[in-house]
């Protein structure tokens, strides 16, 4: 029997007063945000400015020959060309020409970067669990999202300002330069806001990125249709790219469309921030089922698993590429009929750098030669995804199974190569569907055309495997180099009249215009051989280096 004695009353500590927030907490988060986007942001800015400046510099040579200029003006009025390049405005001036020729690629570049950077630094950081530490401090989720958005906004604003400055330095009027720069910046802000909103609603980075890119793609398609189809011009007001065109730099310098775009961006960003304050950290507003039945299809082998992981990305890229080439197909017939009717205009078009556009075959062949850019980037990104799985340790469990390194990498490369061929086939099929109404292009010719570009995409795959073996952190960049770098090099070489060997470095210089011309077998073989060589050297590196997990 024991008597229970109550313990001596312990001194209850006082509830501490909440200290005032340390000054500069938000700023520290802002600095972190800027660190995460500065490198990619600077690269985007430099590419955008270089492209714009180069096109502007090439105008003098073009304008020196009145016949060439007249040809260009005639071609630009065609609905099909308008579909691709937008409405021609003030083409007879250096500024107008530059905006017409480089405006859409630069807008796509800046918009895509802003969207990808935003989902990467918001939803991506959250998904990876890195924000748990950040948000355990005196930082609200809304503040964190807002600061990331501000960092991206700073970069795109700087890009717009740099573009305007470059155009002024090139000798174009200040008003037009300012409107164009402001428009590009506004488009970047809009893209970032769309991506931020998607990142609040959807629970994973890949879903948010997909939704944001799809929204921008839909905007681009809307602009294309509105510019190409008579009577549908009103649709331009519904597309961010359409609003950019409506600002008409160097002709009317309209500010209203740019302001509308800014207002839309601000509204979307405000909604995103409100939603950020109302959701749980680590999940999106759209809750997904917590339980589901196991779907074990394609989980029976390393190869099957590689296919399973590739299915969604291939479907996504196919949708984008298919939509673009469907549009190309539908405009091909209208464009080539117009050019074929008038031999004089056709000649002028040839002098203006639009040779071989007077037949469906020639036109589609020209557009097929752009295909390695997205398809090559796809290949690079897929190999980079394997490296990402390695560095975030997802690969540790499968790699502890009886699977050799070479099989791991080789399977991924083989599945990616199959994905490349799928995308090329999708582009051919979509073009064929598009031209079907006009009865222009047999499917076999379309397939020959798109497949003839495969060596450039395979070069990307080879370069990505090389990087995976020797410089894994730069896999996406090195892998994209043959396609994106080669394409930009060709444009720059063409515009600046660089020596032939500079142009020859680009793999694009070795692509024949298939189906207009027969495929260049020798060049294709050499490029494929180089791709295989790069992959073999990469595989050797992958075999001997330490895994990142």
């Amino acid at each position, binding site marked *: 029997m024991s008597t229970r004695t109550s313990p001596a009353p312990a001194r209850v500590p006082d509830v501490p007063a909440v200290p005032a927030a340390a000054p500069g907490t938000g700023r520290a988060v802002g600095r972190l945000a800027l660190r995460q986007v500065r490198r990619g942001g600077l690269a985007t800015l430099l590419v955008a400015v270089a492209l714009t400046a180069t096109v502007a510099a090439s105008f003098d040579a073009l304008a020196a020959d009145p016949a060439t200029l007249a040809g260009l003006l005639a071609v630009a009025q065609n609905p099909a060309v308008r579909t691709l390049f937008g409405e021609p405005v003030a083409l007879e001036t250096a500024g107008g020409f530059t905006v017409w020729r480089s405006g859409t690629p630069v807008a796509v570049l800046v918009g895509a970067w802003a969207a990808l950077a935003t989902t990467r630094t918001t939803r991506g950081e959250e998904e990876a669990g890195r924000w748990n530490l950040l948000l355990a401090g005196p930082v609200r989720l809304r503040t964190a999202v807002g600061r990331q958005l501000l960092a991206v906004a700073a970069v795109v604003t700087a890009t717009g300002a740099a573009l305007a400055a470059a155009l002024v330095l090139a000798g174009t009027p200040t008003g037009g330069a300012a409107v164009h720069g402001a428009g590009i910046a506004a488009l970047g802000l809009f893209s970032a806001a769309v991506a931020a909103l998607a990142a609040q609603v959807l629970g994973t980075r890949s879903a948010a990125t997909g939704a944001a890119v799809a929204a921008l793609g839909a905007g681009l398609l809307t602009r294309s249709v509105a510019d190409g189809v008579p009577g549908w011009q009103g649709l331009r007001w519904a597309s961010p790219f359409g609003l950019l065109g409506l600002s008409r730099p160097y002709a009317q310098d309209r500010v209203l469309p740019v302001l509308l775009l800014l207002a839309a961006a601000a509204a979307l960003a405000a909604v995103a921030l409100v939603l950020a304050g109302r959701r749980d950290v680590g999940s999106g507003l759209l809750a997904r089922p917590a*339980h*589901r039945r*196991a779907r074990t299809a394609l*989980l029976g082998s390393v190869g099957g698993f590689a296919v399973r992981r590739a299915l969604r990305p291939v479907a996504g890229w196919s949708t984008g590429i298919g939509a673009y080439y469907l549009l190309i197909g539908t405009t091909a017939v209208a464009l080539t009929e117009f050019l074929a009717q008038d031999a004089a205009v056709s000649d002028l078009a040839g002098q203006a750098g639009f040779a071989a556009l007077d037949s469906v075959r020639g036109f589609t062949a020209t557009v097929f030669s752009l295909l390695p850019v997205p398809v090559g980037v796809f290949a690079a990104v897929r190999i980079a995804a394997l490296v990402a799985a390695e560095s*975030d340790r997802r690969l*540790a469990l499968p790699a502890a*199974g009886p*699977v050799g390194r070479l099989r791991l990498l080789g399977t991924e490369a083989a599945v990616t190569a199959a994905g490349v061929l799928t995308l090329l086939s999708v582009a051919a099929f979509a073009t064929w569907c598009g031209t079907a109404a006009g009865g222009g292009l047999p499917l076999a010719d379309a397939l020959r055309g798109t497949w003839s570009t495969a060596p450039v995409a395979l070069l990307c795959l080879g370069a990505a495997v090389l990087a995976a073996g020797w410089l894994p952190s730069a896999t996406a960049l090195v892998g994209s180099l043959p396609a994106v770098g080669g394409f930009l090099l060709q444009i720059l070489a063409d515009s600046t009249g660089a020596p032939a060997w500079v142009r020859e470095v680009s793999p694009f210089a070795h692509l024949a215009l298939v189906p207009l011309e027969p495929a260049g077998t020798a060049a294709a073989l050499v490029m494929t051989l180089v791709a295989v060589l790069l992959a073999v050297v990469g595989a050797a590196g992958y075999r001997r280096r330490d895994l990142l997990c």
Partner: protein
Amino acid sequence: MSGPALRAVGLTKRYGRTTALDDLSLDVPVGEVFGFLGPNGAGKSTTIRLLLGFARPTAGRAEVFGVDASDVARAHRLLAHVPADVALWPKLTGAEVLHLLAATGAGTDTARRDELVERFGLDPSKPARTYSSGNRQKVALVAAFASRAPLLVLDEPTSGLDPLVEREFRRAVVEAREQGRTVFLCSHQLAEVEAVCDRVGILRAGRLVEVAGVPELRRLHRSEVTVTFTGEPPRLEAVPGVEGVESTGEGRLRFSLTGSPGPVLGQLAAAGVTALSVREPRLEEVFLDHYGEGAVR
């Protein structure tokens, strides 16, 4: 099968000027549960990466049942692994991950897998994205224990588990040993190592400083001795192996003893000892002896 389950011969890994693992030579015989101890950064994970062929040794070699560790396609048919920090593909459910690992791993007993899922309390129908770190660890543990691999390489396998699951883990290790499997267990949980391991290796700053059976290890280290006596207090300070002599009352002494007790017993004989108790050190104390108090927090 003759020869050890795991063998390291002069295994060394350097990253630039840093030596992460220095000349490790070690045999783990078949059927043994081997505990591998060391503070953070001692080189335990580096050792495991080398044993799995994830990293290439700067010098020396590692073998799994006589197969070179770098020949992963063959060596990994004989082992299953649980990483320290389990990462899973976020969209796959636990059941899907287990299916994938069974299909690509060293062979799996599916009935045992279902039983282990129950025992570890894993809900396999949830996507991996929603799992806590403990649940991700359970997925890897179920896959490893359900595999038919004769060697299990476990890196901090219980760091995120609750006590109930940890108890199941210990049972599973004992069952694995009963099946004749070999277990290489890296852990910070010294009580766990003490409970399940036959032998222990202690790593410090990349070097193996001690390998011994758990009872042997305790004997080699400080025991706490308490004596009660009636005569003159014994003079123990000069006796080799004796430290920290303190009086705990009238006719009572406590001190720690390393090594053979012979000389001490000689001294005590003259003191009229009425009671003597010897407490062997816990593994934690052995560990602290090696690293000092600062090493374990």
